[in-house]
């Protein structure tokens, strides 16, 4: 492909310049595409409105927003959430959950379990799809499968935590509850619509994936393990509030976090069998840092998170697995989130500031709480592809630019569950008709719940 001038015969050379140009293009098609791409990028940069207030300001907004995320959300919120998500992938017995989604499970039970199991099982849509397919084709059937598919991306631990932290506990909770309720309703409707077809479809495959592969750890230990970790995450991120109890907790949040941290260290040593010396060394380091720099608790917290991850990596077997799972999540999600935040900041600005898109436009499209605004938000959310968690900065930007609370919830409910690429895969599993019905259900329900939430929330 390095040949630029085709070796033409003299006779052909005498042809008109047009046919020669055409031949040249045919000979070097890939090179031509590169040239076109470079030209397009060049033109974009050439005509970039640098120097105009709006553009320069939007660029700066993107940087500001990333800076704000880095300061406020990464250490206390994202890092521990990655660690918890990694631990869930390793220490929670997936077989125990999947048993309730097998072909012999009673339908109502399967539906209920499916609607909440996303919190334990799945973190990104790429892992949801095979599970979804398995439940549909060889397990509990269409209803539970749809419920699982819908709720998975919305109620996984990372999504709830970051939504609550960035957009406020109220919207975070509304998203989680909305997703579970939705999942059940969509599952029931799909099941009723297609119950005849379902009845005739017999499970013929061996159901090996639905066997339980119980792990040897007592349930109580696992429950305490996750309670302590989630507790630390919640208290470390406790926000100041007006009401008395909330504020009391806020003033005591670091001692509470430290207390849970101590309990966690004990658990790791006594039940998880981690080396006493190492855990003690880490605990002492964290305590010293916390006492030396009481104004920047982030430092001690970051050292604690990195320390636990390092100790896990030194542990053979499950510990190592925990580390590598957490690392995989981090690697997969952080870069995309960074880009997502930059783009959201550039387009929409921080709350209270404007990005490249004028706020009145946003306000006109999805401001207030009209049915149309909610519908627009759900349709946009359904077709747009959000990389894991990037829906959060985008909704944050939209809220800052004047989006109503109702449409924000509608976007959060319709967004991560559906996207064009994901619709295509679903279609190959359940067929065109059911996919269309599912998408329509999601859009309609997201619209109405956004509308209802907006009406009550404001």
């Amino acid at each position: 492909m390095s040949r630029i001038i085709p070796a033409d015969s003299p006779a052909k050379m005498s042809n008109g310049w047009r046919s020669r140009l055409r031949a040249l293009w045919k000979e070097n098609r890939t090179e031509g595409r590169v040239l076109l791409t470079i030209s397009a990028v060049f033109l974009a940069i050439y005509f970039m409105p640098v120097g105009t207030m709006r553009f320069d300001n939007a660029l700066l907004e993107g940087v500001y927003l990333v800076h704000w995320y880095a300061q406020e959300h990464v250490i206390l919120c994202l890092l521990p959430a990655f660690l918890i998500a990694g631990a869930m992938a390793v220490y929670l017995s997936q077989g125990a959950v999947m048993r309730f989604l097998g072909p012999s499970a009673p339908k109502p039970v399967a539906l209920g379990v499916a609607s909440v199991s996303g919190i334990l099982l799945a973190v990104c849509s790429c892992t949801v799809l095979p599970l979804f397919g398995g439940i549909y084709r060889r397990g509990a059937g269409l209803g539970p499968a749809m419920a699982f598919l819908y709720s998975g991306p919305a109620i996984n631990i990372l999504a709830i935590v970051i939504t609550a932290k960035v957009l406020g506990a109220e919207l975070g909770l509304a998203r989680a509850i909305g997703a579970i309720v939705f999942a059940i309703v969509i599952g029931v409707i799909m099941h009723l619509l297609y119950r005849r077809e379902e009845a005739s479809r017999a499970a013929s495959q061996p159901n090996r994936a639905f066997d339980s592969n119980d792990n040897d750890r007592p349930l109580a230990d696992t429950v305490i393990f996750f309670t302590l970790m989630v507790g630390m995450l919640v208290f470390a991120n406790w926000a100041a509030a007006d009401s008395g109890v909330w504020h009391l907790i806020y003033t005591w949040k670091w001692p509470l976090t430290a207390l849970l941290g101590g309990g966690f260290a004990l658990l790791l040593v006594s039940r998880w069998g981690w080396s006493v010396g190492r855990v003690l060394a880490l605990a002492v380091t964290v305590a010293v840092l916390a006492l030396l720099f009481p104004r920047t608790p982030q430092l001690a917290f970051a050292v604690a998170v990195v320390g636990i991850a390092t100790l896990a990596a030194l542990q053979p077997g499950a510990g190592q697995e925990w580390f590598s799972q957490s690392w995989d999540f981090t690697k997969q999600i952080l870069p995309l989130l960074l880009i997502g935040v930059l783009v959201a900041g550039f387009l929409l600005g921080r709350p209270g500031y404007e990005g490249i898109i004028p706020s009145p436009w946003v306000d006109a499209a999805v401001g207030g709480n009209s049915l149309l605004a909610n519908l627009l938000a759900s349709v946009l959310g359904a077709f747009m592809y959000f990389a894991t968690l990037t829906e959060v900065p985008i909704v944050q930007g939209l809220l800052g630019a004047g989006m109503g609370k109702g449409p924000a919830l509608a976007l959060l409910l319709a967004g991560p569950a559906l996207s064009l690429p994901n619709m295509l895969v679903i279609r190959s599993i359940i067929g065109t008709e059911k996919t269309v019905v599912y998408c329509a259900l999601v859009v309609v329900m997201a619209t109405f719940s956004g509308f209802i939430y907006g009406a009550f929330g404001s």
Partner: protein
Amino acid sequence: MKLQILGSGCSKCAKLATNAEAAAQALGVSYELEKITDINAIIDSGVMHTPALAIDGEVLLEGKVATAEEIQSLLGAKC
């Protein structure tokens, strides 16, 4: 023997394929590597956590990227 990597083509699947090949080469067995990316084929084989590794049609590993050593011991047990 036939090594099958089941997964939608993510980076984890590619890594599992590399590790499986390394393991088979280390053991010196003749093998044939097949990547199954079709979601329906993956579901039909009973796999629900990708990436997965199947040897001669039997799924041995699911939902994790095993190291070459782990796969080697699995293969060793099969031969």
